[in-house]
Each structure stands twice: as structure tokens, then as C-alpha cells.
């Protein structure tokens, strides 16, 4: 520990040298933080949206993708009542839950998987708990929806924030007033952007939005809850065979699609991060070598008064490790500040793009420390192996 204190003291007394060394690391770590936060957010959204499908089979109209189904976008296709009945009739299906997803703002358009807020109609009469369990329903205020609710809503945390509303206030949708009975805690995924209401009300809104719709007995997607013990994947196959004009996704399908879409994305992110790390590492190596050059005489002095090779090695390694950690800390802070700022700016569109998670923070700090130490090895070895007589003569 004495080493740490004297290292910090040394660094403080060589402010310019120290700052320059740390700067190189900061840039790399800041980049890593921002890209990592983006990646974390994406992963969260995807896994969050998968939650709703982990225990049931998702059925969407033909032409939709599982991502769309999971994140509540519709391409104007619906599943009609007859189809729902067919799905329910497939052996192994315990019950079906119909879901209606309608954009909160009429004609909001296509804004992507993390797009603007969506109204989700839940089948309160037939027990929507299949959804409730899967989704992270935890309320920050108020109560959950229950059977018999008509013109009431439960809203997600982002919606509450954007509209500046909370439990007890009224929300106007398509000209009608709804009472907010509950606000959800932040989940960092799709529920944050949802306004939950009864299925029948949602159907009304859907019908109003889409004048071409002949009947409101439709759903934008259907969840088929399996009977206990049923093989979900096999069930998905059966439904697919039995029911025309639909696409069926079992939980593993959803996961696969999501992860394959994410993996390319993650690859790019990590590629960029890796490059910035290499740059940061090279910067440390360079400045640490310069530092050793500048302090050659000093190293000679220390050896002349009894420092062993291991003492010098340790001193320099500790210093470069601290540089790495300090750079990572500053980079993390900077990245967190920037991403928070951007989040605030884009939040109004319902887009939260960055999530600086504890895991990311730990990773950034750990990587910074590792880079500092690794990059410092070669310069430290050079310092440790200096011949004292030659070193003393330098400068």
C-alpha cells in the first residue's frame, strides 16, 4: 500500500507528464463506454422484449418478424377471430391471449424497434397474467390493471416521464380521457414505452385508426400459452401447420432471431471498442517509454541506493496500472455524462439509446486497469534492467 501512496504522490508531482499519459487512455475508454452503453441498451431491449415470449408461443400475422412482434409494431396485418379460434384448438394449447398494439400517437409511423410509445391492449377478462408474469411488472405508484377496467391505463416509466404525468392524472388518447391508475418502474426495455389498457378499449382505438377494418375482433399478435408439460417448440410447429396465414415463433426461435440480429451489431460495437483500446494501449506504452527515458538518471540513483530490479519494476508497473485505472475512470465518467445528455435529448421521442450498466462500468474499469498494466510491462522492464552506472551518467 505504501507503493500506492508514493506512486500517487509521484504522479501528482509530475502533473503534465501524468495528464498526457492518462489522456490517451481516457479517449479509448470514453469510446468504449459509449459504444458499450449502446450495446447494453440494445441487448436489454431485446431481452426485455423476449421476456414476454419466454413461456409462450408467439403468433403474428404473416409478413411480420419476431422482432416486430416482440416490440409491438404492426404492419397493418391482423389475426382475425377465426384464426384465434384455430390457434386455441391446437392440442397442447392451454389458452390464448390476444394482444393489440397501437401507436400512442396516431400515424406515428415507423421509428424502429425502440420507437415511440405504444398502446397495448391486454385481455383483462381472460386473465392476462401470462403477460404480467413474464414482463417485469413492478409498480412505482398506483395499481395494476384488473378485470372490469374500462377507461383506465397503466403507463410505463418513459411515457410517464415524457408526458409529465403520474398516477391519478388523466391521459388523453384519441380525444378521450383515460385515468392513469398506475405507473411502472423503469425496466430499460419495451414496457417503459407502453400504455396498457383493456383489450376492448384498444380494439376501439384500432378500429378508429384503421377505417378499413371490418371488424374489431382481431389481434395484432396472439400468445398461445402451453399446457403444463407441453413441449413448446413442438407446439409451435403444430400451430404453424394447423393455422394458415400466420407466422409462429417459439421462445427459442425468438431468442435465435434476436441474437443473430444482435450478434452482427455486437460484433461491430466490439470491433470499434477493440480498436480504441489498442489505440489507448499504444498511447500508454509510448508515454511510459518516454517517462522511463526522462527518468533514467533517477532510476540510476535509486539503484545506487539499494533498489533491486524488482523494486523498480514494481514502481513503474504500479504507476502504469494507476494510469490505466484513472484513464478508465475519467473515460467512464465522461462517457456516462455524454450518454446521459443524449438520452435526455432523445427521450422525448421515446428513444433511450444508452444504458451505462454496473456491468459495463466494471468492465471499463477492469479493462483500463488491464491495459495500463499490460502496456506498462515493457517500459517497466526496460527501466528495471538499466545499468546503474550508465543510468547515472545520462543527461
Amino acid at each position, binding site marked *: 500500500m505504501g507503493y500506492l501512496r508514493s506512486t500517487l504522490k509521484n504522479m501528482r508531482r509530475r502533473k503534465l507528464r501524468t495528464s498526457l499519459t492518462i489522456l490517451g487512455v481516457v479517449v479509448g475508454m470514453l469510446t468504449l463506454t459509449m459504444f458499450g452503453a449502446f450495446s447494453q441498451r440494445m441487448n436489454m431491449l431485446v431481452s426485455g422484449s423476449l421476456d414476454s415470449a419466454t413461456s409462450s408461443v408467439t403468433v403474428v400475422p404473416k409478413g411480420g418478424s419476431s422482432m416486430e412482434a416482440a416490440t409491438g409494431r404492426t404492419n397493418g396485418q391482423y389475426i382475425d377471430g377465426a384464426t384465434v379460434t384455430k390457434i386455441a384448438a391446437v392440442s397442447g394449447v392451454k389458452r390464448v391471449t390476444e394482444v393489440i398494439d397501437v401507436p400512442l400517437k396516431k400515424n406515428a409511423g415507423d421509428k424502429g424497434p425502440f420507437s415511440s410509445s405504444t398502446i397495448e391492449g391486454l385481455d383483462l377478462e381472460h386473465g392476462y397474467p401470462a403477460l404480467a408474469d413474464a414482463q417485469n411488472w413492478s409498480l412505482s405508484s398506483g395499481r395494476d390493471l384488473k378485470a372490469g377496467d374500462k377507461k383506465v391505463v397503466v403507463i410505463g416509466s418513459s411515457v410517464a416521464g415524457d408526458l409529465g404525468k403520474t398516477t391519478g392524472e388523466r391521459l388523453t388518447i384519441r380525444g378521450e380521457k383515460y385515468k392513469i391508475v398506475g405507473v411502472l418502474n423503469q425496466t430499460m426495455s419495451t414496457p417503459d414505452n407502453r400504455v396498457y389498457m383493456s383489450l376492448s378499449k384498444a380494439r376501439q382505438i384500432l378500429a378508429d385508426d384503421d377505417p378499413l377494418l371490418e371488424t374489431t375482433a382481431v389481434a395484432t399478435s396472439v400468445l398461445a400459452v402451453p399446457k403444463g408439460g407441453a413441449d413448446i417448440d413442438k407446439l409451435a410447429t403444430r400451430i404453424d401447420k394447423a393455422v394458415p396465414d400466420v407466422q409462429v415463433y417459439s421462445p427459442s426461435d425468438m431468442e435465435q432471431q434476436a441474437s443473430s440480429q444482435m450478434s452482427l451489431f455486437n460484433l461491430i460495437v466490439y470491433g470499434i471498442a477493440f480498436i480504441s483500446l489498442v489505440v489507448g494501449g499504444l498511447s500508454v506504452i509510448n508515454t511510459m517509454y518516454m517517462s522511463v527515458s526522462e527518468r533514467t538518471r*533517477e532510476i540510476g540513483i535509486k539503484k545506487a541506493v539499494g533498489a533491486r530490479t524488482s523494486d523498480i519494476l514494481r514502481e513503474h508497473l504500479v504507476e502504469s496500472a494507476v494510469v490505466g485505472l484513472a484513464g478508465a475512470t475519467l473515460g467512464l465518467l465522461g462517457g456516462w455524462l455524454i450518454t446521459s445528455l443524449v438520452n435526455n435529448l432523445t427521450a422525448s421521442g421515446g428513444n433511450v439509446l444508452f444504458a451505462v450498466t454496473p456491468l459495463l462500468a466494471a468492465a471499463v474499469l477492469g479493462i483500463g486497469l488491464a491495459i495500463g498494466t499490460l502496456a506498462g510491462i515493457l517500459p517497466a522492464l526496460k527501466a528495471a534492467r538499466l545499468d546503474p552506472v550508465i543510468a*547515472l551518467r545520462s543527461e
Partner: protein
Amino acid sequence: MILSIDRVKKTYDMGGENVVHALEGVDLEVEKGEFMAIMGPSGSGKSTLLNMIGCLDRPDAGSIAIDGVDVTALPARKLPEMRGRKVGFIFQTFNLVPTLTAVENVELPMRYAGITGKKARQRAMEVLAEVGLADRAKHFPNELSGGQAQRVAIARALALEPAIILADEPTGQLDTKSSEMVMDMLRELNLKKGQTFILVTHDPIVGAAADRVVRMRDGRVESDEVAGARTAVMPAETTPESGVAYSAGVRADGSPGSGGNGHLERQIERLVERLDEVIDNLDGVRVG
């Protein structure tokens, strides 16, 4: 015998045909309490020899024993332990770490010897007080004068109470006044504490202050003279009287000698200077 050098040789291969025979067989024996100067022209090997004794370099042949330890027989990794502990070093260019304060510089050898915290701080302040710089403890080297910096270096060399303190041109960077002060200090440490000193120097003043002068030329010892009447061995007890007698160059049995001339001469010189000053001042004063 605190130092024994036996047939030490050192050759540097500078590449191609450029081979430097730095030391061509040096024998030397030093007793505890000696104040010895090694003098000689550039290239005589005196600095090389000093580096060998200081365990900063190793001879190609021969042996060196310091305070009973054959340092030439030690494996290379054990050498750093000898530096600072068995031998202390004072350099011409002071060689203080610029980012450490005076007291931190003095603590440096202790840190590497495993002494830390309060103990190290205490001992460091102790030796700083001995060299009269306790009030400058928290200053950085660039805030000290040359003489002060060298005194800090002396304190650093003393820190672990080494058997021998080596000094390579200790007055090289100092003006006359500071040189005298530093030499006085070294002499005092030698007399009062029996600290063994080996100084490498060009400066005849330094040479004159030494008990024994070894002259080197071309990698060999050319001459080895005991200056004046100073005996090489300290008496068991140093009383103020015997200390002064040493300075004055008086033998242990009381008979007069010519040793310590330089030191005594300088003291007289200074007294004369002071008298001159007083007389100058009196010139402007009216009496009566």
C-alpha cells in the same frame, strides 16, 4: 579491515578494437575510520574503482571484501542489498531525486531496505539534523543551494550507517565556501563517529584534508601515502581534545606532526578574512 581489494581488474570492450583496460590489478586495504583520498588523472581508473567498491559494477578478476563480506562472490541479484547498506554514495552532481523532498530523498535507501513509515521518517530527520538541514526537510532539491543539496546527499549516505561512504568528486559542483563546509562536515563525521570515507577527487584541497592519499595512473596504484602524522586507526575514545589534536595534526602521543595542514590553514585563512572585515568596518568609525 573494513575494505580489502585484491588484484582487481576491469576491462571494457567498447566494440571492435576499442578495448579499455580500466583497472589493471589493484590492491588496497583500508581500516575502519580512515579518511582516504584517491587521486589521479582522467582515465586512471579511480571512478571505476569507486563504482566497484560501491557495488555498482563488478570486476572481471580479483576480489573485494567490505566489512567481512566478499561482494565479488555474491550473485548479481544480491548486489543491490549491499548498496546503501554496506556502502553509501555521494556524487559530484548530488543526484537527488527531483520529485522528492529532502527528507524523502534521505528516506530512499531505507525504503529499499524495508524500513518504512515512522521509523524511516524519524531516522531521516535525525541524520538531516546531523548535517544541519532539519529545517529544510520538506524542500525540494531545486529549492536548495549546492552546498545544501550535497549535505542532503551526505545525510542520505549516512542513513543506513554504512561501513564505508564513497564520494566521487564531492566538491566538484560547489564553490569554495560550500566546498569547505562540506569537507568540514565529512571530516567531523569521520572524527566524531569514526565513519570511514573514501573520496575520489582532483581537488588538491580535498586531498590535503585526507589522512591517506592513494594515487592512481593507468589502472594501477602509483603511490599510497599516509599524509602527515595522522594515524590510520582511531583511538578507542574520541575526546574533544583528541579530536582537535587530530585536526591540528598532532600525533596520538602528543608529539607534533604536519598532518591536517590544509584544514588548519583554511581555518586560519578564514580568521584572517574576518579580521580584515572588522578592520575595514573600523576604518569608517571615528574613535574618541
